[in-house]
Each structure stands twice: as C-alpha cells, then as structure tokens.
C-alpha cells in the first residue's frame, strides 16, 4: 500500500503551481501528470535547442534528452520516464538513470507500493525485461505481455523460444512460445500464451494458454489445467486459497473455472475482468447475462442494472462491495455502486476509487469538457479543466483532489462529510 498517512491531509486548498502554461523559451510542453500525493506535477517539455527535458512543478530536470516519453509517477511518488541519449534509451527515475541504456525500452510497470519498477527492453534485437534497472540474464527473439508482481519485484512475460520463419505455420502450431519468469523459461511450450498474472506474494504465476489450434486452458506455474476450453480470459488468484480462477468458454457460453473445474456454470454471453476479495468469499467479474447487456457479477449473480458496456470494475478493500461504470457505447456514463446507479450521466468517467475502510466511493467524471469529482453519488459543486483520480485518507475521512483550475495545479483536501 502507498504511504497514505505520510501525505498532507490538512483540509484546504494549496496551489502547487500557479501556472502550468508552457514557459517562455520552450517550444512546447506535453500533457501533465500528477503525483499520487498531489505535491508534484510534471510534463515533458521541449527546449528551443530541440532537446527534451521534464518540467517538475516550476523547475526543469537538468537532463538533455533527444526524446522523452512514457512520463508517469509510481505509487510512491517517484517520477519515471524513458529518455533517449545518443540514440539509446534509458529508464530514468527522478532524473537518474536506472541501469544501462538499451536499444529500446517501453512499458514501465510499478508494483503495488512503488518499491519496484520494471520495463520491457530490446537490445541487439533480443527481448526481455529490466527490474530496477537489472536486465534478465537471458533474452529472447520476442517478448510481450509484460508483468510485474504486486510485491517482491518479480517479472514475467510471454517469450518466443524458437525461431519462426516467415509464414511458417507448421512450426507455429507446434508451439514457439513459453513464459519466462525473471528471465527463466518454463518447460511448457504453447501455441500462444497471454497475460501472465502473479499471485500477491509473487510465488505463483498463471497464464492463459493456447494448447493447440483450437483448445485453450490456464497454466499455473508451468502446469496446465487438465481441462480444455473453447476459450479463456485472464486468470486471477484467490488470495485466501491460492486457487486460480478464470473465465472459460464452453458450448459457446462463458462461466468461471476454479483450478479447472466449473465454479460458475457457463451461462453467460461474456465474462471477463475477474476480481476476488481478500477472504475469497466474493468473486466478481464483468459479464453479459444477455447479449448486449453487461454488468457486474458477484459470485455468479449478475446485478440487475445492465448496460451496453460495463467497464472499470473495482472492489472495496474487503471485497464485499463493488463499483463499475456503465455506459451506452462510450457515452452517457453512469456510476454504479452495489447495483445502484448514481444520479446523472457523464461524457466520460474514470475508474471508481474506494476508501480504505470501504465506506466511500469517489469517481472523477467529465461533462462538456469540465471535470469534477463525485463522492458517494454527490458532486462537489465545482468543476476543473482536468482532474486526476482522487484518493482517500487512510481513515476515509478526507479526500484528496488533484486538479487543474485554469492553468493552476491545485491540491485540494476536503472532508468526505462535505459530500453527504
């Protein structure tokens, strides 16, 4: 968890940067990113001499880069990005290079509390990952589906372990892919594999696997389930039991399998985005009980409130409550919490955020280009040019809002009771 208690929760409004406009002398400044604690705002900027740097509040990094991209804060408020120097790429954290330069780097991943940072790498045409700047011991012909464990700094990816000639379909269907964890390759060879998922303590990895042209299953720690399915989506670990659950397709319908056996019978038109509470008693997913009608599903029971699209399912810390966003094909967003739609529709909405005690839910929404924050269904009677996702104090009594008010970046702390 991020160190919420160390953040400033004094109610009130602070202007962190009076004007985020591109400073004189710069060619341009790119989109701003805000630190989770709201104390820092940053943006990639291009100097007149055509080098790139990073603006942090009212200062600029000293580094001069040929190009800079993928700027973002980790959960621990460290600022990371990818910088090009002499044609090579560096992972920079707080303006310091983490590890050696590479031919290309991409996909920066932070773990749960920001302790570990990883990214994908390519050097001399071979692919792997860096963890805290350290490259994998072995690289591969190709790699994708990069993952970093929630804790303990382990990385995984789908890797190509055999050469594949152009249009060599015969070799492809014999299998050329596997999974590498910290660069160590599993024995299993797959036709395809997708989305390695770590257990919370990083001791286990599950992956979607295409066993042959037509059969799919889940493989956990290099051992495939014995059952085969028409299709599968991303697996998830039950934190209480270590079981692996995944949406699976049988006879044209979707259900949920646990360690290969059906937990939810295949009755759904669609099912994905499985999330499980910490005690394993509440299993959630996004699904469609009917064609074209999506909603949240708890322990196999769909909510009554259904939409053409449902996204951004989020659980309360104890897993007993859930929130998601329903929408009409990306318009008229509605926030739904515990199967109850909040009043109002929005042009766009961001993922719901639960307070640590699970009592409150906050959502950033946008309408007609103006952003605001809703808490427990009520607005704050104020709009902004931009809002980042809000955060609650550890006791759930206050909410932090990070916003652009005109050109000013502001950090606003409000009592949650203000929204009641």
């Amino acid at each position, binding site marked *: 968890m991020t160190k919420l208690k160390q953040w400033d929760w004094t109610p009130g409004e602070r202007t962190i940067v009076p004007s985020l406009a591109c400073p004189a002398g710069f060619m341009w400044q790119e989109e701003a990113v805000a630190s989770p604690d709201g104390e820092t705002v940053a943006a990639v900027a291009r100097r007149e001499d055509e080098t790139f740097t990073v603006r942090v509040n009212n200062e600029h990094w000293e580094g001069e880069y040929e190009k800079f991209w993928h700027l973002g804060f980790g959960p621990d408020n460290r600022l990371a990005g990818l910088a090009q120097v002499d044609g090579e790429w560096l992972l920079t954290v707080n303006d310091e290079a983490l590890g050696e330069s590479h031919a290309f780097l991409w996909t920066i991943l932070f773990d749960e509390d920001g302790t570990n940072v990883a990214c994908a790498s390519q050097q001399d045409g071979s*692919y792997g990952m860096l963890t805290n700047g350290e490259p994998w011991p072995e690289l591969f012909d190709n790699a994708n589906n990069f993952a970093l464990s929630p804790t303990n700094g382990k990385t995984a990816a789908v890797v190509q372990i055999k050469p594949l000639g152009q249009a060599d379909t015969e070799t492809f269907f014999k299998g050329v892919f596997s999974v590498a964890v910290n660069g160590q390759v599993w024995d299993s060879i797959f036709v395809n594999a997708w989305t390695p998922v770590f257990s919370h303590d990083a001791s286990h990895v599950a992956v979607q696997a295409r066993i042959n042209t037509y059969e799919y299953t889940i493989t956990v720690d290099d051992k495939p389930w014995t059952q085969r399915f028409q299709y599968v989506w991303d697996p998830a670990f039950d934190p209480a039991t270590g079981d692996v659950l995944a949406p699976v397709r049988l006879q044209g319908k979707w259900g949920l399998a646990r360690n290969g056996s059906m937990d939810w019978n295949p009755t759904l*038109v669609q099912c994905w985005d499985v999330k499980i509470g910490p005690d394993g008693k509440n299993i959630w997913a996004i699904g469609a009980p009917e064609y074209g009608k999506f909603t949240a599903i708890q322990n196999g029971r769909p909510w009554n409130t259904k939409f053409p699209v449902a996204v951004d399912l989020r659980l309360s810390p104890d897993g007993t409550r859930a929130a998601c966003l329903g929408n009409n094909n990306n318009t008229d967003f509605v926030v739904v919490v515990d199967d109850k739609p909040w009043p109002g529709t929005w042009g*766009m909405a961001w993922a719901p955020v639960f307070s640590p005690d699970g009592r409150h839910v906050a959502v950033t929404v946008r309408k007609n280009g103006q952003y605001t924050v809703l808490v427990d269904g009520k607005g704050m009677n104020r709009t902004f040019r931009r809002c980042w996702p809000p955060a609650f104090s550890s006791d759930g009594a206050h909410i932090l809002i990070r916003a652009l008010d005109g050109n000013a970046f502001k950090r606003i702390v409000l009592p949650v009771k203000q929204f009641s």
Partner: protein
Amino acid sequence: MSTIRERRITDQGLEIGLAALTQDRIREAVQAIRNSETGAKMKVYHETCMRCGMCAPACHFYVSNDNDPSYAPVAKVHQTMTRILNGEDIGPQDVYDFAQIAYTECNLCRRCAFYCPVGIDIGYIMSTVRRFCYKLGMVPQYLNDTGNSHASTMNQMWVKEDEWTDSLLWQEEEARDEFPHIRIPLDKEGADIFYSVIGPEPKFQTQLIYQAACIMHVAGLDWTMPSFPGWDNSDMSMYIGDFETMGRVKKAHFDAAQKLKCKRIVMGECGHAFRSVHDVGNRWLGAKDSPVPIVHSIKFFADLIREGKIKIAYKIDDPVTIHDPCNVIRGRGLMDELRYVTHALCSNVIEMTPNREYNYCCCAGGGVINCGPPYKNSRVQGNRVKAEQIKRTGATIVISPCHNCHSGLEDIVHGAKIDAKISFLGDLIYPQMEKPAHFTEPAPCNGGGHV
C-alpha cells in the same frame, strides 16, 4: 464450365492441413456446423434459395471468368455448404476444395446479396464455410500466418512492441521538419480521438502515419495513439474463421481506447477492419454495437473539410475515379461522404459504372489478397471486370480508401497494363490541404496561453 478440382492451386498450408485430416474430424466439424445456431440459419438460407441465379452476374469472379457457372455465388454454396447441410460424404480432398472456394474465390463482398430477391447473405454462408475449414486446419498458408500474428502480437504483421512505438517516434521526428510543433501524442488520456491503423502501416507504409499526423495537427485535433497492443484495428482472424482470436484482437482494440478514456476511435483507410469493429468482432464479444464509436476515415475527412478544420488549397485536374470499398460502402453506406471528399480534392471525377453500393469488389478483400502469392494470378483474373471498369473511365488516379482494395487494385491495373495509380484519400489531402505559416514556422512559447 470448369470445376474446382480442375483449377486447384497448390497451397502449402492446405497441403499440411490435408495430411492431418481424418474422416472423424470432418464428421465432427460437419456436426458442429449443422447442430449449432448457425446451422439453423444455414438451413433457412438453403431452403429459401430459389436457385434463380440472380446472384451470378453480381459476382466479379463469375463475370471475369467468362460467366463460368461454377463461380456463381449459388454454385459456390452448392459446392460447399449445401453438401454439409445435406449430410453428404465429405472427404479430405473435398475440404481442400471448400477451402479454395471459400477463402480464395469469394471475397465475402456481399454484392450478390444486393441482387438476391430474398436477401440471402452468401457472404455469411461462405464465412461459415471458412469457419468449417478453420476447424479442420484447412487455411491457406499466408492468410493463416496473419492470423498467427494477430494471436501472438495483437497485430497483423508480426510488428514487435518496440517497433511500433519506434515507428511513431520516427514519424513524429520526420514530420517536425515540416511542422516544428507536431506531435504524435502517445497514450494521452482523455483525448477525443484514438487513432488506429492496420498492421502494414508501421511495417512498410509509415508515410500514412506521417500524413495522418499532419492532418490531425493542422486540424488542431485532440488525439492520441497507444504505445501498447490494441493499436491495430485489422482482423484477418475474422476472415480465417478463427473467431476466438478475432475476439481477443477486438477486445484489445476496444480496451486500448477505453483505457485511454478516448471518446471515439478514428480508423485509417481500411475496409475490413471497419467490418470487424462494428459488425463481426464486437458481436462475438457480446456487444450489439461497437463499445467505442468508430469513425471511418472517409467520414472523418468529410467532417474535417465540411467543418473547415482543414481547408483544401487546390484541386487536382487529373482524371480521377472512385473505387467503393465493400465494407464501408455496401457495409455502412459512406458512398456520399466518399464522393464529397473526392470532389473537394479533384475537379475531374469520372464515376465507374456501376458505382456506389453496386460497384464491383476489388477482389482483394475478404482476406483473399492475404492468401498470398499462390493466388495472385487467379485473383487478378478473377477481377477482369474491375480492370475494365477502371479502363472505361480513362482515369489516371483511382481513389481507394481501403488498404486491401489499394493493394488489390495495384495488382489489377498492373496486370491489365492500365496507366493509373491507386491513391488513398490521405495521399491527396496531405499535399493539397492548406498549411498556414503558423504551423510551419518554429515559434517558442511565450509563457502564456493554456496548458
């Protein structure tokens, strides 16, 4: 009249599949088709068809092959799906025939459906035959390879993740020589437009990304492209009959736009991808419509010109004709918008005959061009009618706002020795649009203005 067996083309992928075929597997696949929901639809079509033959002259393969009856859409169905539905003995060699007919002698263009008096969708029937073949491992090799790429990389051309982003960074840098402030904004959250392209663009048509960036820049649009998988809107898996991979690829595409909280997806000049996102792939995922609105480039460009967001500085005088891509014209009715854009760019537009929704297919779509070199000659021969259409117009430029059409028409004009070049709309908009000085001259910030 020829027979499919007489005109067999050797395809390594089909040969490999053939070697592994057994009667049991074929029986299983037949049952899967007959006993599924699709089987009911097929039976209705089968029993509704009057064998009137109205579909025959609608088919470019039939017309281009001297009205050979075996190329008539109804005959293609009779040689494939009808045999499945009738429970006839189907052997491995028959499946080879099915695959050649369904994958390489039908573009799923649905022109025949426009002429069928009872509206039978033969494109759908042939798609189902393809699904049958896919289940038996009988897919032309090159087409299969694009599907394998989709499954492995979420794009059609085996483009690796670094290659994709590197291509965007490179095109941005190139374009800065022309527009000092231009950006290809990566992963910009909350942007209005999520711009997606198809696999060949970063692979060997990066100038199209350059052009799109310039158009977006001059129009002053709020747009982004993702640095992660989901950038490719194309979908050869749909045409293979590998609906599972199709679903994964479409999910990645929609997920990418949803993750970045973009309002709409604007897609490049591609036809089949449009079919996949608004008609086929979305439905396999359980969505009635596209979960994120999709705007095809034809409509996008028309709106930019109509709203004055880009101004066309001059029109070209060359004789120009318009090819109507099946998936966006017959499939979505963008014929007027296509003409609006073309006439805004060209002063001498000569229509093909027939045109609009009745225009002939390019013979490349439906995955046929992706079946690769073994079928190039039959593909070009199978669209002699299109060559004649183009020739009759006397045009030296053929507008074709679709990648597969573009490539297929290049083969056709080359094969028929027609002095015409094939052009995307963007190929004309980019050089012909006004580029005001404030876009082309470097100017540093003055410390004011909005973020």
